[in-house]
C-alpha cells in the first residue's frame, strides 16, 4: 500500500532531469511566443462590443459612442455589472460579483479581447464588423 518511492535522485539522473526541465520550459515559452506573435499580427482593432449572458447574445454596442450600460443578471436582476464605453474602449466600472475580477480588468478595444464575469456568467467581447475581419490567406 505504501508507495514510498521518493528515492533520492542520483547526481546523474538529477542533471538529466534538470536539462530536460530547461528544454521543456524553453519549448513551452517558444510555442507561447509564436502564438502571441500570431495573435499580435492578425488581430485588428474592433468596433463593437457584444455582451452575452449565459452564452446567449444579450446586446451589441458601438465602441464609438460613449455610454454607460448597467447589465442586470440573476433571477430578479439583483446582480449588476456596469459596462462603460468611453473613448473607443470598454470596461466594467463596478460589479456586484464576489471576486471583482471583471471590474479590475483593464479596458478592452482590440478584436477578440474580452472581459469575463464568471460568477454572473457575463462575457463582454470586442468584435469587428468590418467586412475583412478574416484576411484571406492564399496558400
Amino acid at each position, binding site marked *: 500500500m505504501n508507495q514510498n518511492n*521518493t528515492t533520492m535522485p542520483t547526481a546523474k539522473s538529477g542533471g538529466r532531469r534538470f536539462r530536460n526541465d530547461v528544454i521543456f*520550459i524553453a519549448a513551452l515559452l517558444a510555442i507561447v511566443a509564436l502564438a502571441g506573435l500570431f495573435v499580435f499580427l492578425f488581430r485588428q482593432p474592433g468596433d463593437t462590443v457584444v455582451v*452575452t449572458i449565459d452564452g446567449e447574445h444579450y446586446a451589441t454596442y458601438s465602441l464609438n459612442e460613449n455610454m454607460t450600460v448597467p447589465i442586470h443578471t440573476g433571477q430578479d436582476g439583483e446582480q449588476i455589472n456596469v459596462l462603460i464605453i468611453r473613448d473607443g474602449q470598454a470596461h466594467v466600472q463596478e460589479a456586484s460579483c464576489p471576486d471583482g475580477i471583471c471590474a479590475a480588468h483593464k479596458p478592452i478595444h482590440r478584436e477578440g479581447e474580452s472581459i469575463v464575469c464568471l460568477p454572473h456568467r457575463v462575457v463582454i467581447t470586442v468584435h469587428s464588423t468590418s467586412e475583412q475581419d478574416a484576411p484571406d490567406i492564399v496558400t
Partner: protein
Amino acid sequence: MRHKSKKIAFLGLCAGVALVLAYVEALLPPLYAAVPGIKLGLPNIAIIFILYRFGLREATVVSFVRIVAVTLLFGNPMTFAYSVAGAFLSLLVMTILRKLDFLSIVGVSVAGAVFHNVGQILTAMVLLGTAELGYYLIVLAITGTISGLLVGLCGAMAVKRVFIKNI
C-alpha cells in the same frame, strides 16, 4: 490499521495546509487582475507533495476536499466547476509526466500549472459559450510557467525534507 489511520490523518493535515495556502493567496493584493485566473497556485505545493509522496488517488482526494472547502468558504458554483476542471486536468498531466520520468518535480509542476489554466479556460469557454477566451491562454501560459516554477521548487523542497514515521 494504525498506519492507515495515520495516513488519513496526515492527508487531512495536508488538505488543511492547502486550504491555508489558498487563504493566504486570497489575501495577496490582486496586482495581476488584468486577466482572470492568474493565481500563484500556492495550494498546489501541498498537492504536488502528495502526488510524489503517495500517488494520484491521494492527491485527487485531497485536491477535491480542498476545492470543496474553498468553494464553501469563498466561492460559488461557477468557480467550483472551473476549479475542479483545472485541478483534474493538471493532476492528470502531472501524473503522466511523473510516470514518464524525464522531468524533475519543477518541470512537472510547470506543466501542471499551465494545464491548470488550460482546464479553467476550456471550462469557461464551454460554460460561457465563447471561443474568444482562447486569447487568455497566451497570457496564462506565461504566468503559469512562472507560478509553476515557484510551486515546483517549494514542492520539491517539501518532498525532500518532510518525513513522517510509518506512513
